[in-house]
């Protein structure tokens, strides 16, 4: 696969484009081959995603950056099995995705906690949906809430929590059934800048501790570089791969890493994709 890059924005020096060599193929992780999506509407077909080919390794933190309406959320829905691709095939753990497979945890921009359920009961939602034994997973749900600092809030209702706390609870909900993959659609987009940075550090820790494969969609380039092992840059609608970058920054990363020359160079390079395309809104 050769990522399409305009000649003016070649990665400089130590920054290199990730290619298939860095992705160890095989049965694990998420494999997309020729996946595209076209929506049918009354005005005719609206292409949302051009054919995509890439592989996300198991345990990798994979971040997708792209302008609004480039089909990022469509991608997420297709990987979770909610939406069939128009062409191509998606494989999760080597198994083709044809219907919801439940091997994902999803976190949206808003926490999406059910207002009539307590925090603990909200975290248990996937268990109820999958009809797994409640008493077996309750200790796990409590444990997860504890690790994100929500101990003592188990029996509160969502509206009694701050936005950041709600989003933490929704991350617990995405993890409670122990899926291989976490899909996150701009998970911290609704939070204030300071909470957002804190949540980024926290998410990095959670991912390292659990070893989940994470696919995170964001509008924030610094957030992408801070969190990612690899970054996929998408073009405007219909979305296609503009480039895939490796982020060779050492882990665990602290917020100080944002001053690292490599960090700055990477954000700069990625930003150029969008300044040449138009605004990243």
């Amino acid at each position: 696969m050769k990522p399409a890059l305009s000649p003016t924005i070649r990665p400089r020096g130590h920054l290199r484009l990730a290619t298939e060599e860095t992705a160890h193929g095989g049965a694990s992780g998420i494999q997309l081959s020729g996946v595209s999506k076209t929506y049918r509407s009354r005005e005719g077909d609206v292409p949302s995603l051009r054919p995509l080919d890439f592989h996300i390794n198991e345990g990798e933190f994979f971040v997708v950056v792209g302008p609004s309406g480039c089909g990022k959320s469509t991608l997420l829905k297709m990987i979770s099995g909610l939406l069939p691709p128009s062409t191509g095939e998606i494989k999760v753990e080597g198994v083709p995705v044809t219907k919801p497979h439940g091997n994902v945890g999803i976190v949206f921009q808003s926490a999406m906690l059910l207002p009539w359920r307590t925090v603990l009961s909200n975290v248990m939602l996937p268990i109820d949906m999958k009809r797994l034994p409640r008493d077996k997973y309750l200790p796990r749900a409590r444990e997860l809430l504890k690790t994100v600092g929500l101990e003592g809030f188990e029996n509160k209702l969502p509206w009694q929590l701050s936005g950041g706390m709600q989003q933490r609870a929704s991350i617990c909900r995405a993890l409670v059934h122990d899926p291989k993959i976490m899909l996150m659609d701009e998970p911290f987009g609704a939070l204030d800048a300071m909470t957002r940075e804190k949540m980024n550090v926290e998410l990095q820790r959670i991912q390292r501790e659990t070893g989940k494969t994470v696919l995170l969609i964001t509008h924030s380039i610094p957030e992408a570089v801070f969190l990612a092992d690899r970054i996929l840059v998408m073009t405007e609608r219909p979305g296609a791969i503009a480039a895939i970058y490796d982020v060779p920054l050492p882990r665990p990363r602290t917020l100080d890493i944002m001053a690292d020359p490599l960090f700055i160079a990477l954000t700069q390079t990625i930003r150029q994709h969008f300044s040449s395309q138009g605004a990243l809104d």
Partner: protein
Amino acid sequence: MAEPAVMAKGSRLLNAAWIRPFLFLVLIVAAWDLSIRLFHIPAYQIPAPVDVVKVLWTDWPELLSQSWPTTYATIAGFLLSALFGIPAAMLIAGSKTVESYVYPLLVFSQSIPKVAIAPLFVVWFGFGILPKVICAFLLGFFPVVVSAVQGFKSVDPDMVDLARAMQGSRTNVFLAINLPHAMPAIFSGLKVSITLAVVGAVVGEFVGSNSGIGYVMQRSIGTFDLPTMFAALVILALLGVILFWVVDRIERLVIPWHSSQRADIVIAA
């Protein structure tokens, strides 16, 4: 928590829920009495409040026994509109096909005046309780459907996706997400429905019945017995208020989590 506690204290002092409307009612009755005296309105046009109270006092047993058939018909009609209205709304909200066929007709049917077709029910079902129940049902049905459809449709699709991605079955997702989400809207529909069901039952009694508050009103107008007619109106208003209050109480029990009830939770906590 300090602020709600202060508010609770304040509201307990004023007992805001009923004291304020009661004070306002006293004011209206005083104005009514005053204007009758000032403008010398004859008793066969508007009775004095005192006369109405007198009738309420002396004819209380009769009025009470006549209010039971109206109450039964109202409750039966209301329950039927909930029983049919909520599933109908589920179908309309759940299927574009059903919506496109049924919803416009439902709206169309609402523009038919129930008063005009009420005599038809008497022809079909006689002078018993059935025509009244049907009238109450027909008036109460529509608001339940409209509110419930809106409630079912306002569910965040992402929330449903989230549950579906967890392999939740259709029924499971519906029971865990769509239904509870629609409850506040359903209850606002039920509250409108219960007051309209009272109207429906009275309309049914107007056109053909030999019992009920509507019958009392019809009879007293025929004999220019205005104090009795006004007393019947008071009974009807009371009936509406009590039934509304009951639905409101049930709502608090069923959806204590809803934002409109939150002050209560804080006080209780």
